Structure formats: structure tokens, C-alpha cells
């Protein structure tokens, strides 16, 4: 074990190196570039024996990853923002073909206008593609989630690709202290990838990605739907094993003061660090607030979330992404849908914040909490934090 200071991107590169991918096909984009620069250094220095394929676009990157994974390779890659948007077509291919690719996504705003800063709209734009989405609060979680990502993706009951999402610049470029494991410890945890199907099976050759007509496409999609039911237990089980190895707990989400909370807040990513401080401060003043830090956005753990929120009078959902033409951001829609099945419904209010890297601070979060302590406070439309009117 080593206690090191690394940027989020470097922590991701180290984790990827220790998982020993056979192939990494990648194209640079801010704020991902430094991760693959670091990883390319590891390859050049002989620290990892990965076939690093530098392609001409993100669409090509994911296509090459799909080919490599179909061949039976362990595959990792990374992208952000418009890069993810460009490879969108192939993300659906990767999940439908049940390829356990692990991809770091350094959450960054989508164009236009061009913005290189933190925003979750990129991974949210791919939320229906059939990938698993794990979100990170800090560099430690980036490191831990990439390692667990391979175990989750390659689990024979899952065999689906994983997106490890972390805030662009806020986490990717900020140096933090974290604990890394020895190469052998990581390798003992992830192990060698044993593919179920591979293009190298010459005794019984397989065709990947054939055509379906009206008579079979629907049934193929249904098999993918079924596979998604297995993910949550695997994420939990992998988290428990990882916690035995490292002492750090990992599940679907973390709860803070939820047992007797009257108002709860839920968010993704680094904002949870800020919200954690606010929650503690308000609790010290006797306010009954609580926090849910969501790690697993896809699949959305709706039953557990609904159970967690069933006794609060208001749930404040913070969305660092915007979804047009509907009444809430992506996370708010999920939480509202989850609560729908409960007989007692809390108010689920939604705030859009932090788009294009707009910062959010403790005062702003505290103000939002204070406003909603009153159970009678109505908020019919989504609000905005930190927006100039």
C-alpha cells in the first residue's frame, strides 16, 4: 500500500495500469488527455503490456475497443463530453454485444457553446445505452471504481460495459492524497479476464454483430434487459470484497444522517464532498438534514432509494446536467419515478447547478437546505443554483 498524491487523471491511469488491459484504443479530449498520456508513459516504459491503439476519433476508439473486446481482450479506454457524444453510436453496440469494456468518463459539458469544464450532461446523454454508470467523489474513488469496474463488468452474470464517471477538472486535474495498492494486490482482485465468447474460438467460430430483422431484434433487446437485473447484486458483492481488501466501503450509494432526516439531498460526483460538509454543519445546529451520495446511477437502485427517502418530507435533487423538454434533470426524473411506487410521497424538488464548470459552494447548498426545511415550501419548477438572473 502506498499513500500518494495524484491528480484524478493520474489515479485513473495507475488503476488502469494495475488492471493490465490487453488493449486500450483511445483518442484525446480535454479533460481526459492526461490520463492516457500517463498511461502511454507506462506502456512506453514497459510497466504494462497493453496494445495502445491511437485512433483518429472517439468513434474509432470505441469501435476498436469493441473489436478487441469481442476478440476476448480486457479493454479500457477514456473520454469526455463531445468525445463520448461522437462514440455514442458504438456505446450501444458495446453493451448489446455484452462486451465488458471499462471507460473513464471525465464529465464535461457538451457544446454549444464549447465548454471544457465539469458538467454531467455527457454521461447523462448516454444513460440509455446499457452501460453501468459509477460516479466518484474524489481521486480515491476514481482509483477504486476503475479496479472494481473491471470485476463488475467481467462478472459472468453481468458482462456489460462500465463507465467510471468523475468531474472534469474538479477531480481529473486536482491533486489529492489517496491510497494505492501493490500491483499484486490489484491483480489478485481483478484476476485474468476469462471471456465467455471470443473471436479466437476456432473450433466453433462465432459471428458478432449480425443483422436482425423485425423478427428477432426485440427478443435480443429483451435478453439485455434481463442481464441488467443482475448488476446491482454484483456491484454490492464486489464492493464488499473490495472493502475487505482495502477497508473502504463501497455500495450503491452512501447515506449520511438518513435515519431521522426530514430533508434529504442527493447528488452525484464531487459536489457530495461539499454537501457532506454542509450536512455536518447543519446537523451541528440541530437541523434534521440528510445526504445521499449516489455512486451507481445506472442501473438506478430505485427500490433502495425509495426506501431511503420514504420518511423525509422533501428530497432535494441536485442535477449537474440539463435535460430539455421535461420537468427535471436526469437524476430528478429517476428519483421521482422511484418514489412513484411508495404510498407516501415526499416532495422531490430539483435544482440544476454547476453547468459548464460553474462552481457550487457550501453557502449555496446550505441556503437550499434551509429553504426546504419548511415542509410547506412549494417549488413547482426546477430551480437553478448559482445562475445570474
Amino acid at each position, binding site marked *: 500500500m502506498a499513500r500518494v498524491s495524484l491528480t484524478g487523471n493520474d489515479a485513473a491511469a495507475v488503476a488502469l495500469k494495475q488492471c493490465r488491459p490487453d488493449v486500450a484504443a483511445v483518442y484525446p479530449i480535454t479533460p481526459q488527455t492526461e490520463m492516457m498520456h500517463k498511461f502511454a508513459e507506462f506502456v512506453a516504459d514497459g510497466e504494462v503490456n497493453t496494445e495502445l491503439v491511437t485512433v483518429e476519433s472517439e468513434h474509432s476508439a470505441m469501435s476498436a475497443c469493441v473489436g478487441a473486446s469481442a476478440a476476448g481482450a480486457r479493454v479500457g479506454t477514456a473520454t469526455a463530453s463531445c468525445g463520448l457524444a461522437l462514440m455514442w453510436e458504438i456505446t450501444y453496440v458495446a453493451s*448489446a*454485444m*455484452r*462486451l465488458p469494456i471499462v471507460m473513464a468518463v471525465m464529465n464535461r459539458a457538451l457544446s454549444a457553446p464549447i465548454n471544457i469544464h465539469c458538467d454531467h450532461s455527457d454521461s447523462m446523454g448516454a444513460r440509455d445505452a446499457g452501460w453501468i454508470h459509477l460516479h466518484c467523489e474524489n481521486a480515491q474513488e476514481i482509483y477504486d471504481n476503475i479496479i472494481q469496474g473491471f470485476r463488475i463488468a467481467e462478472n459472468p452474470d453481468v*458482462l456489460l460495459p462500465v463507465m467510471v464517471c468523475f468531474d472534469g477538472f474538479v477531480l481529473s486535474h486536482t491533486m489529492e492524497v489517496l491510497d494505492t495498492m501493490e500491483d499484486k494486490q490489484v491483480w489478485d482482485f481483478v484476476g485474468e479476464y476469462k471471456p*465467455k*465468447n471470443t473471436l479466437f474460438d476456432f473450433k*466453433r*467460430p*462465432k*459471428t*458478432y*454483430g*449480425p443483422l*436482425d430483422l423485425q*423478427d*428477432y431484434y*426485440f*427478443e*435480443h433487446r*429483451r*435478453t439485455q434487459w*434481463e442481464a441488467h437485473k443482475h448488476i446491482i447484486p454484483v456491484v454490492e458483492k464486489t464492493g464488499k470484497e473490495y472493502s475487505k481488501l482495502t477497508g473502504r466501503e463501497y455500495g450503491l450509494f452512501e447515506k449520511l444522517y438518513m435515519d431521522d432526516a426530514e430533508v434529504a439531498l442527493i447528488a452525484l460526483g464531487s459536489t457530495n464532498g461539499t454537501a457532506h460538509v454542509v450536512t455536518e454543519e447543519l446537523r451541528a445546529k440541530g437541523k434534521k438534514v440528510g445526504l445521499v451520495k449516489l455512486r451507481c446511477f445506472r442501473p438506478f437502485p430505485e427500490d433502495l432509494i425509495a426506501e431511503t427517502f420514504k420518511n423525509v418530507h422533501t428530497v432535494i435533487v441536485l442535477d449537474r446536467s440539463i435535460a430539455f423538454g421535461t420537468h427535471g434533470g436526469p437524476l430528478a426524473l429517476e428519483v421521482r419515478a422511484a418514489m412513484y411506487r411508495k404510498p407516501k410521497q415526499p416532495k422531490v424538488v430539483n435544482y440544476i447547478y454547476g453547468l459548464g464548470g460553474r462552481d457550487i459552494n457550501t453557502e449555496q447548498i446550505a441556503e437550499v437546505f434551509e429553504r426546504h426545511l419548511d415542509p410547506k415550501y412549494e417549488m413547482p419548477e426546477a430551480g437553478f443554483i448559482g445562475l445570474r438572473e
Partner: protein
Amino acid sequence: MKKDKGWKELPMGGIIDEPGNAREYHTGSWRTYRPIWFAERCIQCFQCWVYCPDNSILAKDEKIIGIDYDHCKGCGICAQECPEKAHAIEMKLEAECILAEE
């Protein structure tokens, strides 16, 4: 007619895990025109065999022996490529051929 499979019977990831099973998919039913091969006019140049996109010109012991009508889609490339002086393949309306057979 083989019964279509339910979703539970499908191989994972939409792969086809039975190599060469395209043989069982009879695209011959798609034909509008059928190539008729006249053996006595054939000069065995093998141009039809080379250019057929569906491997549907049959050869045995280095001789053209006929056409695989289970898979021939009637594109007419074989008739097009057959040298004019040989003119060993003619395209006929599939519907007429079927009527004639009955």
C-alpha cells in the same frame, strides 16, 4: 417452417454461435428472375462462378455443374458475365419457372 425462438433461447449478445448456419437461410425465395444454365453451351470459363456474390454457381471436379437455387437471389451477374459467344445462362421470370414446374 421452423418456429421462431423466444428471448430466453437466444445466445448472449446477439452472436451467432453456429458456424455456417447461413446455409439454412434460403434466400432463393427472394428471386424475381431465375438463371437457367445450358450445360451444352457452357465453355467452363468459370466467370459466373468467380462473380456470383452468393457462391451459388455449383462446381465439382473442376467443372461447373449447375446452380444452387436455394441461395441464388437472381441478381443476373452470372448471365451478364457469361461470354457472349457462349451465352450459356439466360434469365427467366421466376414466376414463369414455378408455373412451368407445377
